[in-house]
């Protein structure tokens, strides 16, 4: 069993969950995720590792409540336990001094982008962090971003906090002005990641996006998470989750994520 250390509501629909999982914390690397089962017979649900601490043996997830499994998880209180945390899974990101790195986070990626930015900074990169949210009260972790970023750009769709708009538009405007960016990493909903890819492609900036197809076993066996990247079939759980965003078939990702929509609705009743 894995103990929940803290559960903090960071936005109206997202919780920061800190869970004791020393084995995961010991070997985690930026870009990886873990599979979590709330109860012995629950679904296995993938969550991006938003942080970890080897010393305390804890890992941090940002969980957006969207259905049954995420709902069950965010209702666990400190001291409660979850049945399994399996990880770290997926390929760690390739880390180098690329020069200037833009990290774009939205949705649960507001947490997921943290280890990416931190690792890129440690490798000597200049890090610009773009964090986008719908509205005021949906940004958090500003202190964390500041600890590794040379600049933090906060945007909201309605302009209630930071700049009005989307992170990727600010990036686009700067690229047009001739600002140099060498690598882009993005974590968020498929729509935002697709837009990011569209913006960076004409500038030929290598861009990596963390794909989030439905996953079952997380071991490359079941095929649930297959995606098409540059005409090739890839398994997001073992080959990813980060892939070259310019090569991803975003419409396929969207459709595959919606494949079980009827069952997902009915279990919420």
């Amino acid at each position: 069993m894995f103990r929940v250390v803290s559960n903090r509501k960071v936005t109206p629909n997202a919780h920061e969950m800190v869970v004791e999982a020393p084995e995961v914390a010991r070997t985690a690397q930026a870009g990886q995720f873990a599979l979590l089962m709330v109860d012995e017979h629950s679904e296995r649900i993938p969550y991006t590792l938003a942080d970890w601490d080897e010393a305390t043996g804890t890992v941090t997830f940002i969980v957006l409540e969207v259905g049954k499994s995420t709902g069950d998880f965010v209702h666990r209180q400190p001291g409660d336990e979850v049945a399994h945390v399996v990880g770290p899974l997926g390929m760690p990101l390739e880390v180098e001094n690329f020069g200037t790195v833009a990290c774009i986070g939205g949705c649960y990626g507001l947490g997921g982008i943290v280890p990416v930015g931190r690792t890129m900074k440690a490798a000597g990169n200049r890090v610009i962090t773009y964090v986008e949210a719908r509205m005021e009260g949906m940004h958090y972790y500003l202190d964390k971003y500041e600890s590794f970023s040379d600049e933090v750009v906060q945007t909201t769709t309605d302009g209630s906090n930071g700049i009005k708009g989307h992170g990727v538009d600010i990036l686009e405007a700067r690229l047009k002005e001739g600002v140099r960016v060498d690598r882009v990493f993005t974590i968020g909903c498929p729509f935002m990641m697709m837009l990011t890819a569209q913006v960076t492609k004409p500038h030929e900036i290598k861009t990596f996006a963390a794909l989030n197809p439905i996953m079952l076993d997380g071991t490359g066996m079941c095929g649930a998470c297959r995606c098409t990247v540059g005409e090739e079939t890839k398994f997001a759980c073992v080959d990813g989750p980060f892939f070259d965003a310019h090569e991803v078939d975003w419409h396929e990702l969207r459709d595959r994520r919606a494949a079980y929509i009827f069952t997902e609705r009915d279990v919420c009743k």
Partner: protein
Amino acid sequence: MKITVNDQVLDANEGESVLEVALRHDIEIPHICYHPILPANGVCRMCLVEIDGINGLPASCSTPAADGMVVHTETETVRNRRRENLELILLEHPSSCLVCYKREACQTFRPEKEKTGVTTGCQNCPNKHDCEVQRLTLDLGITDLPVGSFYRNAEFDRDDPFIENDPNLCILCGRCEQICQYHHDTPVVVLTGRGPDARVGQAFDLPLNASGCTFCGACVDLCPTGSLSDRFARWYGVADGLVKTTCPFCDAGCALEVKSEGHRVFSATALDQTKPLCALGRFTIPPFLSSRDRLTHPRVMAGERLREVTWEEAFTAVADGLAPFKGDTFALVCDRSGTVEDRHALRVFTEEVMDSSHYIEIEDGEEPRVELPTGVKAVLLTGDFLEADALDALEMVVVLDCYPSPAAEKATAILPAAILLETKGHLVDENGVERPAKRAVRPAGQAKQDHEIITGLITAMGDEGTAGKLTGEIETRIQDSEAELITERAEAPAPALDVTKIRTRYRGHLIAARVPDAGAVQPVAAPVPSEVV
């Protein structure tokens, strides 16, 4: 009486408001809190107009039309104030999707609504595909707000049966309170709190089932936002099926408007909105139809176990099994929940095919456990009607039913029945009048309607003549039907005013065992506040 609206001379009736006259003549004046069946409330200030000789901008919904009145609905002043008023509403509403400049691209990429725990914008709002606030915002061309909107961060109430209440989406139009009062005299949902704490809820924050709510769902139906929503229907999309039919749960005969998507019924609402439905009609049909426990495939006892078989195999097995029991050793037990046609087929089967006098039809309201006449050795049951010891004494049990029961465990054969909106024919209302039952979705799995199963059985017994005649009769009856829906009810059905009168069983099964919320609508005592000793 005549009034002039934007240079058009319109006839007006005594007692009509300016808004009503305009709407009746297809002149659109934006409005939110006004609803045709409710008295004007005048709170949203969207319906402002200019009227010659009257100072300021009166609300057209609460201004009675008067002969000779000259009204302007689209002057610069009116438009500006209308816009400002909507902007004020949007400032306390999760408006990000409304003012997002990527809206079109977003909607092209992901037109479906996104299921979520807490709604933060139209994209993940239960109202996404049908919202008056959204429509008005687009119509008035509002694409930006003077400042960012304010999220109330109020507690989302998800603990009540069937109904969810997210006060963060509420625009305080008051329609819910008004319709509840209209139907039930004393409103259960009321506007509480002031200023930033204003919200819709129950007095003392009691749960709905401790506040006298009958779960008629009228407040949900009239709420123009995603604030009050139907938990089952919330995340369905645009209906691809729409059927008007009679509620199949009791004999009150209420007419329903039924929506489905991808062969699943997701909502049923009152066709006549001036009268409430009961909790069964309004909320229970979709979950009762779609529960995972439904019997969906014909099964026949093979050795020790029930084995899935084709319908042909099932018919033959049952026909052979029942053959030795012709006469009064056979009995058929059903209730009145099926259509007239289904019950006719069951009776013909018992009396004419099985030659038995034991056609036992349980009356509504009767205890659904029957004692069998002595000498009966084989039964066909259409529901959960027999106690275990009665079952033990039988040599053959055929179950034609929708859900598992003790009988299904002892059955020689299980024939899965189509139920409720999966069936068609006629239902008889409390006054003995036949009402149309329309099929809204295909049956679960391989289930078939009772009369189809019965004719299948009769055919397998070698009596094709009777089977053909029965099918022919039923088809003609449905085809030539002149039965009509109750499009205007004189009175509310009794269970819509008193939840203790709601029917609790269907085919002998406790409805609440399949749909727990249906049991939770029964009144509970108000919890004692902890600080009171």
